[in-house]
């Protein structure tokens, strides 16, 4: 049995719009990946614990609430506490351009804004995992 790419798609924070996360989850599935979709309103601890139990290769966060600068560091911290701080993470949603360098500084691989083609997300994941 071959190894499949496993991706955790999570929506941390309080906004209730999961359309984008679902579209990305489907696109990743259609690209042959196994996508664990956790649904809305995940706390940082829930995201990190799911990533650990599912032994995922990549974590995708969908954040539309504007709370990314607060949520991302907390999630990274929870991941580090569990010894999986090295799992690559990308963020999608509404992130002001000014925040992107700061997120990347924290360790986020890529930030995808509205209008991103799903192919770009698939390509990023393949690129990260080939490194």
């Amino acid at each position, binding site marked *: 049995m071959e190894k499949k790419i*496993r991706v955790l798609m999570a929506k941390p924070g309080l906004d209730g719009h999961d359309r984008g996360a679902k579209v990305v989850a489907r696109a990743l599935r*259609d690209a042959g990946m*196994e996508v*664990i979709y956790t649904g809305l*309103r*995940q706390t940082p601890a*829930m995201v990190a614990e799911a990533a650990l139990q599912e032994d995922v290769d990549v974590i995708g966060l969908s954040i539309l609430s504007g709370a990314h600068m607060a949520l991302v560091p907390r999630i990274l911290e929870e991941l580090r506490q569990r010894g999986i701080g090295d799992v690559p993470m990308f963020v999608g949603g509404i992130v002001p351009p000014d925040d992107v360098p700061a997120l990347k500084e924290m360790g986020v691989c890529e930030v995808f804004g509205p209008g991103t083609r799903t192919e770009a997300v698939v390509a990023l994941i393949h690129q990260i995992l080939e490194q």
Partner: protein
Amino acid sequence: MTLVAAALAGERRALARLLSLVENGATEGRAALATLFPRTGHAHIIGITGSPGAGKSTLLNRLAREFRNRGQTLAIVAVDPTSPYSGGALLGDRLRMRDLVTDEGIFIRSMASRGHPGGVAYATRDVALTLDAVGFPIILVETVGAGQSQVDVARVAHTIVLVEAPGMGDDIQALKAGLMEIADILVVNKSDRAEARQTVRALQAVLHGASAAGHHGPAMAEGEPEAFVGGWEVPILQTSALENEGIAELVDTIEEHRAYLRKSGQWGRILKRHARAEVETWLQRHLLLLLEERVGEARLEEAVGVVLRHEQDPATVARELLQPLWSPEEK
């Protein structure tokens, strides 16, 4: 410390990695399972199956909570279908288990069916065995939304809970020959709905129809050993996972079934059935590997050509292909 040792010591990250190796059938995974196997055989593995939309995940979430309230730790293996087109999968069972995620007494693992048609994945049993070996006393296995013939959970679980939603009507007839035969406990979920009573009655009719035939009809003469020697009367329970109703009764019934299995000697029979199925599965896998090694793709293609040109029939051709597997003295 090796991955196996770390997993046995209770390190969750090591366990998660180990499960991936086991699931992928990697050499390291198989070696780990070989090491762990003597430690297995202690967990009570409970299969949760039923039609898509019956509410399996929500019910499983409630069940897990109830077991936790009774002081048990447990693991959950949730299987969702792999897309036959892309080979990918959307594993969404965690959506309904959000309140279990950060409980340290619970370990949840999602699995894709990866092309296996039986309602669970090829590796589901191996994953369950690994969780058994590291000491989870209860393992809940949720199948894909299953139809009548997806009965492979019987190769994994000791107790099988079949969950259906109200309004099934005639569909229950369809389940009669497959899933209902392997079910130990029937659950009508969403019992807050008006049609629930009807579904219970339909299930009763099917169950009692079966046992009436057993008592009075020709089936009795043939013995029907599973149903009658066993002496477990399949109960029909009603739950509302959403309202958290009937859950304690379901856990009680699951525990009664376990006690019954132990007392009646059925437990041993199930283990024997599992062991036999596993050895047969591995025989097939090893044979296929051996075929790949000793026969190879080129000769297989050649054989296909022979059949295509109508020079020889496929059964004869296949027999001749197997020649390299027999050592000279055995021929």
